[in-house]
């Protein structure tokens, strides 16, 4: 007879307020299968764990059920505690009576009854649990980083500098991301390029970083420690190995298309590098706009190139990389101006977004750092900044706060004042959020010393009138509506997940939340990991954040990767498929349903076997097995039937 102990947690009042814990314990004590039952106020605390350990020893328990919060929080905690007391960790199970009971019900009577059923269903399972050993799999100590913005750059450098190889995959022709577009950074006003480009160069030259720009992840297979990634290397139409990056071809190209890097404020050719400091500093041909690809004639670049590096017939290449961990650093986009009809819908020329204004401020930008408005190149004297353009608007746009806008708008207004001394910046805000080191002081400086006017109220509409742009807003502190006839309007458009993140997340099988940002494993305790093992998150792909937070998170993700790489092999959950060789008839149904090719046919024995390293434990083959030969360890059909019976209670 197995000796099972049940430990019921009060979780302070979180459980005890709705579930009558004493009654639960009383009920459990009536169950002949339960040797020991007791409650404690905080089971996860040190004394709580001590209690579990002592009871295992004193009562000679064979298995333990802890009725507390979701197993996603403390399963590991209690399995470790059980192991310390000499129990096999797989003899410890969690009954979730908080998230799925006490927090979601109000009727104390019914919640208590439900808690008893939940615990009994777990006891029924635990009663039949076997002692298991974790499966050990080797780790490929090589990492991949997807996305070459500041997050990907930092993560790559940290991992590479710890001695491991890194493959950095970037969709654009150059790394650098949005940070390369910024003029100066808050709150220190140091030049973005100055702090970023050395890091870009370091990535480009690092002996342990394999840089793949103009490349996209096509397919990912495998599991933590052992991923195989297929990457599409888009054809740049230039042989980068021989190209010297002299730039002659770009001078000659007759095509002019709006430059993405400069937010359409000036033009680039069809053969181009996104910006002068690009890494690698090699051009690509934009085939959609190239005259040769459209008409079959031109080839001016080819005739210019002295080393003969132009390759019009180059094709995309698919390459495979084997890695043990993947950092996803896909970054952000901003809500397109066209989406916001009441602010001109992208039709009013002097309404631009924050990134465009960065380019106007940037010394390397299209106006060489002079603030000149797009419509006629005049220096604007009245400039209105509109915050929350598409953020904090659950009804029509994005519900969340984009988090970086309060500070970058303050910076914009300040930098504008530095460029145009007799100009006046106005900032319409809903709330000014300055939660960061030195941020509040920066905001005060803008108000007190730079004379930036802050107006509390959301702008209702913006329209063009002659060569002016009229802003209708409110100043709710004055209790009056406001009209400003501006020369330039800058919208702090909402930060949204990068395009293609959804598709990528699907390929990687990692989760995204309702706003399309990548989901972390735990919002507080595991903020840089995905729920899916082996994937780590850095930067704005997870949620909007500024540069310091991005860099910190990237370093956090990198250290998680190096922690994983610190061992030769890792332990995997042994709750996988197992075959009873005597029962298996060799029908091979299991092989057809397995998504991981973990089921194989043994020709000699004429049975289907399990490849333990590949099995992820989904159980699809178990349910498919017609004769019950395949079972899942510690979740056998018999255990499930017992759980069902227990969950329905008596009556």
């Amino acid at each position, binding site marked *: 007879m197995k000796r099972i102990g049940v430990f019921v947690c009060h979780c302070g009042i979180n459980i005890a307020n709705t579930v009558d814990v004493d009654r639960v314990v009383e009920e459990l004590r009536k169950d002949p299968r339960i040797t020991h039952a007791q409650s404690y106020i905080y089971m996860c605390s040190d004394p709580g764990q001590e209690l579990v350990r002592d009871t295992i020893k004193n009562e000679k328990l064979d298995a333990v059920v802890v009725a507390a919060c979701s197993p996603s929080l403390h399963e590991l905690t209690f399995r470790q505690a059980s192991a310390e007391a000499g129990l096999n960790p797989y003899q410890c199970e969690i009954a979730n009576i908080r998230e799925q009971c006490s927090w979601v019900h109000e009727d104390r009577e019914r919640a208590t009854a439900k808690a008893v059923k939940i615990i009994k269903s777990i006891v029924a399972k635990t009663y039949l649990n076997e002692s298991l050993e974790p499966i050990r799999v080797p780790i490929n100590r090589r990492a991949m980083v997807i996305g070459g913005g500041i997050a990907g750059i930092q993560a790559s450098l940290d991992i590479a500098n710890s001695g491991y190889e890194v493959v950095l995959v970037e969709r654009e022709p150059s790394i650098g991301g949005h940070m390369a577009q910024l003029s100066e950074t808050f709150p220190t006003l140091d030049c973005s390029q100055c702090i970023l480009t050395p890091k870009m160069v370091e990535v480009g030259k690092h002996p342990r970083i394999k840089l793949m720009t103009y490349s996209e992840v096509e397919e990912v297979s495998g599991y933590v420690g052992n991923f195989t990634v297929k990457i599409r290397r888009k054809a740049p139409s230039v042989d980068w190995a021989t190209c010297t990056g002299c730039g002659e071809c770009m001078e000659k190209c007759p095509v002019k298309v709006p430059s993405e890097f400069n937010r359409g404020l000036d033009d680039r050719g069809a053969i181009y590098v996104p910006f002068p400091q690009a890494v690698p500093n090699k051009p690509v041909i934009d085939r959609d706009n190239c005259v040769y690809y459209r008409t079959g004639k031109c080839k001016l670049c080819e005739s210019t190139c002295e080393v003969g590096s132009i390759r019009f017939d180059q094709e995309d290449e698919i390459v495979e990389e084997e890695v043990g961990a993947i950092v996803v650093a896909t970054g952000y986009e901003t809500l397109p101006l066209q989406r916001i009809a009441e602010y001109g*819908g992208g039709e009013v020329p002097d309404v631009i977004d924050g990134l465009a204004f960065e380019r106007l401020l940037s010394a390397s930008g299209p106006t060489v750092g002079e603030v000149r408005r797009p419509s006629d190149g005049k220096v604007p004297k009245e400039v209105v900044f509109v915050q929350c353009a598409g953020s904090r608007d659950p009804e029509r746009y994005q519900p969340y706060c984009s988090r970086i806008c309060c500070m970058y708008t303050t910076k914009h207004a300040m930098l504008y004042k530095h460029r145009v001394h007799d100009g006046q910046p106005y900032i319409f805000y809903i709330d000014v959020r300055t939660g960061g080191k030195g941020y509040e002081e920066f905001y005060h400086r803008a108000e007190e010393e730079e004379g930036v006017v802050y107006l509390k109220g959301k702008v209702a509409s913006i329209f063009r009138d002659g060569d002016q742009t009229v802003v209708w807003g409110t100043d709710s502190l004055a209790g009056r509506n406001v009209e400003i006839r501006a020369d330039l309007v800058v919208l702090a458009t909402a930060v949204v997940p990068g395009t293609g993140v959804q598709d990528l997340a699907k390929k990687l099988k990692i989760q995204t939340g309702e706003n399309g940002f990548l989901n972390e494993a735990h919002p507080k305790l595991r903020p840089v990991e995905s729920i899916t093992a082996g994937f780590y998150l850095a930067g704005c792909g997870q949620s909007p954040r500024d540069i310091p937070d991005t860099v910190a998170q990237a370093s956090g993700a990198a250290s998680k990767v190096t922690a994983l790489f610190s061992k030769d092999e890792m332990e995997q959950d042994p709750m996988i498929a197992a075959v009873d060789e005597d029962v298996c008839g060799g029908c091979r149904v299991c092989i057809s349903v397995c998504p991981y090719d973990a089921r194989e046919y043994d020709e000699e024995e004429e049975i289907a076997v399990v490849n333990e390293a590949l099995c992820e434990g989904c159980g699809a083959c178990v349910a498919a097995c017609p004769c019950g030969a395949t079972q899942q360890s510690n979740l056998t059909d018999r255990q499930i039937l017992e759980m069902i019976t227990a969950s329905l209670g008596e009556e």
Partner: protein
Amino acid sequence: MTRVAYYPGCALKERSAHLERPALGAAEKLGFELDELDSWTCCGAVPPPSEERIMNLVAPIRILKDVRDTGDEVLVTICDFCYNSLKRANHRVSTSDLDRKRVNAFLRENQPKRDYLPSTEEDYRDYLGEVQVMHLLEYLRDVVGFEEIAQSRSTELSGLRLAPYYGCVMLRPEDEIGLDSVENPTIIEDFLVALGAETVAYPYRTVCCGSYLSVSFPESSARLCSNIISSAAEKGADAIVVSCPLCFYNLDSRQKMISELYPGTKSIPILYFTQVLGMAMDLDISDLGFDKHYVDPEPVVEKALGSLKGGGSR
């Protein structure tokens, strides 16, 4: 000739009757007949400040139920107020189980005598929102087609610079009305372009004219109307085009008060969209109802188009 059920509403039958006549005439030339309902009541104009929601619904739903019972699927109106109250009531009944049940229970027990409709309780069939309420502009866009209108027009309105005015209730609230974008509508512009006219962009086209404040706070309404008129005039509009009898009244007749309160405001004629359609369809000027305007549109129209049919010596 195609026949479509038509709800005129109170204003278009009485104080604003001159705006209805060109609609009927132009429709005929376009090959359809606006067939007025045999019997109808007030639509309610606006939801009253009553906590008893059901009473807002009784009038419009009774109208729509009668339309359905006579076998029609579409009901056309040419007044923004009627359009708004009928369409919103219809939306409410289509989306709220509770409202649908309550209003039908009320109507079932309080059926008026109609010799052409069944009136016993057993014959009553719940109204579920079956009728599609359409603004005439919407009907012209979605059923007749603006391209078809461009083909059929007999007078080219080129040279006439018109400023569309949408006002409030034709478009809002967006999720219940859904006629066009509330921030950037184009239906009146598209309509005027189909007639060959030039349109004028100005920022006040969806800003309220004061609506019923014309009764309670006439000066407030005058201020709003002066903004609209000045802005349109400044952008070179020959006239403002409206689709609501109250907007028409506020913008046209209020120009007397505006000129007193805001001297120097340019006077500008106001045209109902039905009148513009009538002009393009070559209706006789006597059918356009220009004689009922405070600001006579005839000189502006004549200057742009030459004399209209039957016009020149009114």
